[in-house]
């Protein structure tokens, strides 16, 4: 079965994010960029599907030429092909825009697939919108935030995380799935993979080639203001004997934390 995996270049989760308040964006200078961690689970799952069912793994990324490095990482992990859907627009955090580009690319140029995989959300934007939107645009069934996937003939069944439980969903293929931590343990690139990725041609398609108009590409989401989250406040210490502290704790959980 051929699988497509969509991956995104994001700031390393260990980076210290600084904000450019004038332009409402993050300052990229000095940041280290990596493949979004949830996307690694998606790549790994696709590689495992190829190992058990055959077929090929093609990875795609929407972004500038700088995204090539994460495509090469996926190749070094073992993906067969990689495609850059070139889009030089600055990060707009508009999931709909990205989904539209991806859906058009698949509709127009890439029809041979049994499964499309994403990370459940990109680290950084964390909108968790694109997989669902792409599935809708392509008219495909979808299972999101999956922690287990089994494929049998033309059917896929997946466990997805829901509040306090997991739900088993069975869908006909082709389908869209998005990967949650726990789905698998992503492999490292190998030295051999890195050397092969060096020689691999990565075809580039542009948004213009897909016939997307400026209007379709204009972000519909406006960033009004970007702020770092407030510093975490110091923890509360309840004092007194056991009966008093238990009462204080219950009061706190009921009135302030509102969890009971």
């Amino acid at each position, binding site marked *: 079965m051929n699988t497509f995996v969509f991956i995104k270049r994001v700031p390393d989760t260990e980076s210290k994010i600084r904000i450019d308040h004038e332009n409402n964006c993050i300052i990229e200078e000095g940041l280290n960029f990596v493949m979004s961690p949830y996307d690694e689970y998606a790549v790994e799952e696709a590689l495992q599907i190829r190992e058990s069912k055959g077929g090929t793994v093609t990875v795609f990324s929407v972004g500038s030429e700088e995204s090539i490095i994460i495509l090469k990482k996926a190749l070094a992990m073992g993906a067969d092909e990689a495609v850059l859907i070139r889009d030089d627009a600055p990060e707009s955090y508009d999931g709909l825009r990205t989904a539209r580009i991806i859906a058009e690319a698949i509709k127009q140029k890439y029809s041979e697939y049994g499964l499309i995989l994403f990370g459940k959300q990109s680290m950084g934007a964390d909108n968790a919108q694109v997989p669902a939107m792409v599935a809708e645009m392509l008219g495909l069934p979808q299972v999101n935030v999956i922690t287990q996937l089994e494929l049998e003939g033309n059917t896929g069944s997946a466990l997805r995380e829901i509040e306090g439980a997991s739900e088993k969903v069975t869908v006909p293929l082709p389908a869209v799935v998005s990967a949650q931590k726990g789905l698998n343990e992503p492999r490292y*690139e*190998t030295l051999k993979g*890195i050397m092969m990725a*060096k020689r691999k041609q990565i075809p580039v398609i542009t948004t213009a080639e897909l016939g997307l108009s400026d209007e379709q590409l204009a972000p519909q989401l406006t960033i009004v203001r970007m702020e770092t989250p407030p510093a975490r406040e110091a923890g509360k210490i309840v004092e007194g004997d056991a009966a008093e502290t238990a009462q204080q704790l219950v009061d706190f959980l009921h009135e302030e934390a509102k969890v009971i």
Partner: protein
Amino acid sequence: MDFELNEEQRMLRDMVRSFAQNEIEPVASELESRHEFPRDLLKKLANLGLMGMTVPAKYNGIKTDYLSLSITLEEISRSLPSLAVILSVHSSLFCYSVNKYGSEQLKSTYLPKAAAGEILGAFSLTEPGAGSDISALSTQAVRREGRFVLNGTKAWVSNGNDAGAFILFAQTEAGSGGKKLSAFLVDRETPGLRVSKIEEKMGLNASITTDLVLEDCEIPEDNLLGDEGKGASIALHCLDCSRIGIAAQSVGLAQRALDEAVAYSRQREAFGTTISQIQAIQFMLADIATLTEASRLLTYRAAALYDLEKPFSKAAAMAKLYASEAANKVAYQALQIHGGYGYSREFMIEQLYRDARVLSIYEGTSEIQRMVIARFLLKE
């Protein structure tokens, strides 16, 4: 002049760095304190292709440039300096010399296994009574019925415990009763070869170092590396290259000591502020960061000269001399920044300080490096 690593080198560095963080870090201090050889980690390195970086594709390796090997050793050393020396000896000394000087038969027997991590290699030159002075080595190899018979005692053999094969130097008869050094490959299973003692060392305790006793140890004639009597130049050439690896190990250790010092200075409070706000500490951090970066540049340059097939021996000696001495200074200052806690085994800097000490001793002491450098200066 471009100081950037190329794309593959960056990818390799990122891969090894994330491997080190996720796989080495969680077990490193435990391995060190238990003096436990990191066998599982070596298997994992082999799966990633990192045991065959000096082995050509023909023998199932993935031969990279020396800079890539150096970056790999540096990143590994940042988490576990012991593992860096194990890998350096295996790659830069064992695999490298088998590939360069071994017969076709030897290469096809040993290199694929070494690249797959099925056997680990060792390199045995030093003896209890001779180290830097290789003309004083006393292990003998005598020809007998188409074989060599080896007798003697070797010391300070890194990987001696687990090695499947040893590159070993012994004196053979030259004309008119004289002796000349020759290089051999000795399989671990050879009768007459045994490990007699495990050294109790100051540091690098997850890297096991042993003695080796050879008693009528018979090896095939084909196990001679290079020409008979050419052992000294083989040893010196191999050590020239591997020095770059030890320099890289030193850079990784220094970088980690620096990282630990920066992190500690940010969280330790004194006189109403974190100590990172105190200029005396800031100056120490600035100094050790500069020592580390200078070491890295000398090391990368030596590796790059090797990769360009230019004369590299002097640059390698300079890199090894500077980086190993710098690692000691950096570890010393980084420990000083930790104050009393630096003297406690609870903090990694205590281990790094001990690990650093041997860097300016093994694979050519600082004094030997200076002799090499001076020889080049006076010849030029």
